């Protein structure tokens, strides 16, 4: 057909307001997955300071751990990891064909559980930085 | 111009089966359809397909039931062909993978249906038509048969001999709804009409919005007689706002009908003291309308069908889909409140006259499915007999059009000298309006280009004028194409006038008021006057949407003419037939009159002045004659 109106990118991605549970789960899982790979690379980079000398390693870790931002980022990392794990489990069940009818509920459960775990572990994470 | 051996118009069950058969017979076939095939209304059929496939059943019994159900107005050769071939065709569907419901032993399930002496209705849940339609479309995809979908066929390209029986059909003209292109389709071997029902003639119907009787009207105007048009089946329980069917199952399980005053009117007013709500479709429909007409209807429109007393458990178990239908389409919770219902148009028994091979009297023109009348249903169709009709006669028409040898037909088509002429006293002239001026909207124009409307006109350029018979087949298609282009340009060019929606609503209302399950002379005449007036207004019709892209306004405007011609034909037949047979009831004559009326009502367009005549019914079957009996169960 020669003439037709293509509503373009906005059409494709501008509908987030209308996303349903499964789509949000997908978006979050993607996001957390990427953050985790990113972290994995940085993590190994930081740890490799051990190759220089034991002391370099210990000081790097100690300095980093004494910074509040790093602690906060760690909490963030925990949130990301916990959500990815929980939703990952949800997806594994979906792949096995278990509980598909309550997929939206299990997504909300992952969210709530993530929140709870993160809040509960904040004290442990920030302990000693102040 | 497009060219194929066989052109099938319409892609419902009948059209798809015809196309597959024509291809099997070696033809290059194409389907032209105003809807994509899977959108066809065959998909709405729920009940099932009658086929004598089991031990203890026989095609003879099926034929007997069908003939009895038809109130002895079916033609035996067609009825017997249907019943003999239905088993094989039904199994063919099964072999194509159709998902029929199954018995424990893996064979297909059958259920009892009204008017059948054996439970021979083969079904697939409550969605037999959907499964049938999709299974056949799948075969179409497999075979790579070409489909021109969303092409609206507007006119047949037929030669213009004075006698319709000498005419030949060379193709069709169609309008591409998506692009606005008008094009000719030349059919080297034949055109098969499979355009389905005509429910949109009424304002309340179980039929789809696209069931506007196009095929019947086009064939009629091209010269093919149309048969038994007055026989329209009404279903007593349809939802008022949409016409969605509420199956007989509700009443079967014990559902009760109440009027506005909460009276169980089937008994209280003695419409059917024995059977009550379970009386036959026509009896219940008439009872409901009597209630409404006498002021006891709810909102003067409908009655209540109540199933609450059956209890939630039983309803959920047996009638769950009914709950969904009432909820989705009427916003009513059947567990909490009674459901509104009223009678709705359901099926047209009549249609394009064909023989049992699907051929019309015009050479190269065939018809199958609901638009055709080989006459298997006579004056009343049995539930479950339409789907087998699609596959049996669709296939026959397909083979025949593609040139496969067929047994000679016993039904003779066309108007023959020896057959009785009919007379009917009409308050206004039926047929084409002959007002002066440049009006192409209402029909064709003379082939010689003159547009003097005082002379008879016809669609498809079939006016008898010398010289043009020398045209080549392509020439005829070309000429029809020109005429159609002109009409479309005219409609789009006109800037003011009246819109089709208004005329359509008026005709539909009048038909529902006057040519419904109740028919009496005064009402029928009123309908004819209304139709006449609508025809006159249609002369001034215009299309407000000027776009060439997906112009549904234009399509509906063209459909409107078909609605007019078909509505008039129904009314003329109803006015002529003074008896009560099958679905046709006349106040003036409330019994069946075999001495006088054991014959088909035939109507020929006759270039704009409809002519009524009668053809005798063929009751002699292969090995027995079906003697008319009282139709009681």
């Amino acid at each position, binding site marked *: 057909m020669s003439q037709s109106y293509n509503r373009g990118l906005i059409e494709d991605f501008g509908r987030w307001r209308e996303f349903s549970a499964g789509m949000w789960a997908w978006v979050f899982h*993607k996001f957390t*997955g*990427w953050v*985790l*790979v990113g972290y*994995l*690379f940085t993590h*190994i*980079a930081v*740890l*490799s300071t*051990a*190759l220089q000398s*034991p*002391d370099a*390693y*210990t000081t790097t*870790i*100690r300095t980093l*751990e*004494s910074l509040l931002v790093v602690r906060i980022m*760690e909490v963030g990392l*925990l949130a990301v*990891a916990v959500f990815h*794990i929980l939703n*990952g*489990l949800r*997806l*594994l069940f979906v*792949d096995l064909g278990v509980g598909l009818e309550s997929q939206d509920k299990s997504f909300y459960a992952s969210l709530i559980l993530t929140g709870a775990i993160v809040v509960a*572990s904040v004290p*442990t*994470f920030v*302990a*000693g*930085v102040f | 111009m497009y060219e194929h051996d066989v052109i099938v118009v319409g892609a419902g069950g009948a059209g798809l089966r015809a196309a597959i058969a024509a291809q099997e017979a070696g033809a290059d076939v194409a389907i032209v359809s105003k809807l994509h095939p899977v959108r066809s209304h065959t998909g709405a059929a729920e009940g099932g397909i009658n086929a004598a496939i089991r031990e203890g059943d026989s095609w003879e019994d099926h034929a007997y039931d069908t003939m009895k159900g038809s109130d002895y107005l079916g033609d035996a050769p067609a009825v017997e062909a249907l019943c003999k071939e239905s088993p094989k065709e039904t199994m063919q569907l099964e072999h194509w993978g159709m998902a029929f419901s199954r018995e424990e032993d893996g064979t297909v399930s059958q259920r009892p249906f009204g008017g059948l002496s054996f439970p021979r209705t083969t079904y697939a849940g409550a969605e037999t038509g959907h499964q049938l339609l999709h299974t056949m479309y799948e075969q179409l*995809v497999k075979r790579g048969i070409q489909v021109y979908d969303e092409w609206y066929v507007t006119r047949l390209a037929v030669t213009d001999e004075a006698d319709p029986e000498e005419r030949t059909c060379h193709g069709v003209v169609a309008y591409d709804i998506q692009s606005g292109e008008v094009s000719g389709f030349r059919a080297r071997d034949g055109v098969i009409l499979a355009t389905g029902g005509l429910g949109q003639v009424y304002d309340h119907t179980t039929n789809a919005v696209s069931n506007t009787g196009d095929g019947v009207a086009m064939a009629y105007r091209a010269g093919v007689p149309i048969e038994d048009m007055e026989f329209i089946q009404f279903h007593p329980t349809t939802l008022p706002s949409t016409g969605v069917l509420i199956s007989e199952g509700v009443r079967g399980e014990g559902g009760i009908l109440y009027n506005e005053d909460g009276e169980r009117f089937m008994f209280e007013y003695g419409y059917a003291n024995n059977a009550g709500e379970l009386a036959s479709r026509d009896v219940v429909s008439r009872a409901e309308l009597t209630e409404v007409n006498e002021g006891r209807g709810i909102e003067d429109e409908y009655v209540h069908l109540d199933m609450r007393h059956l209890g939630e458990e039983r309803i959920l178990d047996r009638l769950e889909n009914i709950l969904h239908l009432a909820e989705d389409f009427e916003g009513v919770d059947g567990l909490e409140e009674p459901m509104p219902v009223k009678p709705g148009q359901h099926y047209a028994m009549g249609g394009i006259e064909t023989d049992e091979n699907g051929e019309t009297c015009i050479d190269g023109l065939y018809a199958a499915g609901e638009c055709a009348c080989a006459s298997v249903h006579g004056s009343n169709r049995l539930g479950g007999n339409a789907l087998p009709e699609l596959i049996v006669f669709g296939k026959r028409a397909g083979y025949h059009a593609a040139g496969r040898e067929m047994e000679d037909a016993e039904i003779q088509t066309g108007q023959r000298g020896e057959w009785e002429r009919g007379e009917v006293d009409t308050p206004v002239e039926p047929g084409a309006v002959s007002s002066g001026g440049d009006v192409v909207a209402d029909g064709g124009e003379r082939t010689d280009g003159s547009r003097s409307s005082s002379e008879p006109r016809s669609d498809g350029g079939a006016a008898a004028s010398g010289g043009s018979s020398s045209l080549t087949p392509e020439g005829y298609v070309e000429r029809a194409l020109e005429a159609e282009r002109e009409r479309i340009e005219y409609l789009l060019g006109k800037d003011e006038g009246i819109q089709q929606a208004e005329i359509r609503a008026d005709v539909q209302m009048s038909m529902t008021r006057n040519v419904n399950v109740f028919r009496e002379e005064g009402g029928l005449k009123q309908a004819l006057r209304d139709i006449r007036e609508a025809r006159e207004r249609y002369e001034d019709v215009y299309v407000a949407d000027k776009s060439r892209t997906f112009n549904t306004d234009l399509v509906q405007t063209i459909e409107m003419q078909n609605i007019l011609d078909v509505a008039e034909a129904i009314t003329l037949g109803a006015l002529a037939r003074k008896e009560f047979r099958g679905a046709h009831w006349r106040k003036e004559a409330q019994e069946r009159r075999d001495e006088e009326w054991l014959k088909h009502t035939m109507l020929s367009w006759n270039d704009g002045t409809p002519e009524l005549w009668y053809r005798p019914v063929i009751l002699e079957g292969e090995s027995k004659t079906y003697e008319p009996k009282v139709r009681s169960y």
Partner: protein
Amino acid sequence: MAERYSSFERGGRRWLWQRITAAFLVVVLAFHFFLLHFVHHADEVTFAMSSARMETWTYYSLMVLFLVTATFHGVNGVFNALVNQGLTGSRKTAVKWTLVAASLLLVVQGIRTANAWAGITILPF
């Protein structure tokens, strides 16, 4: 019809491995987090402690396996995501090998670190 799709790739294996690694990671990642943030607090980490753990043969192999699975899982996930977003043709091939290279680098670097802790020097790097 189906011809359009004649060149198919058996994506099924990678899909399956993504699930298998995920299932493995659930356990190990949880263990990892728990051990390094709750049992031992991160700010108390020293080379010596890490070293002490790594010298245990089982812990060492678990961590290497952890690294390999996480890398596969993460990188494969990223690659899938890009392919799903419409990455095709030569760019796809390029990205694929870049990712493979990056993963190798990561794994090698990770093992070297672990070796440093564990005091293993047999490997050439």
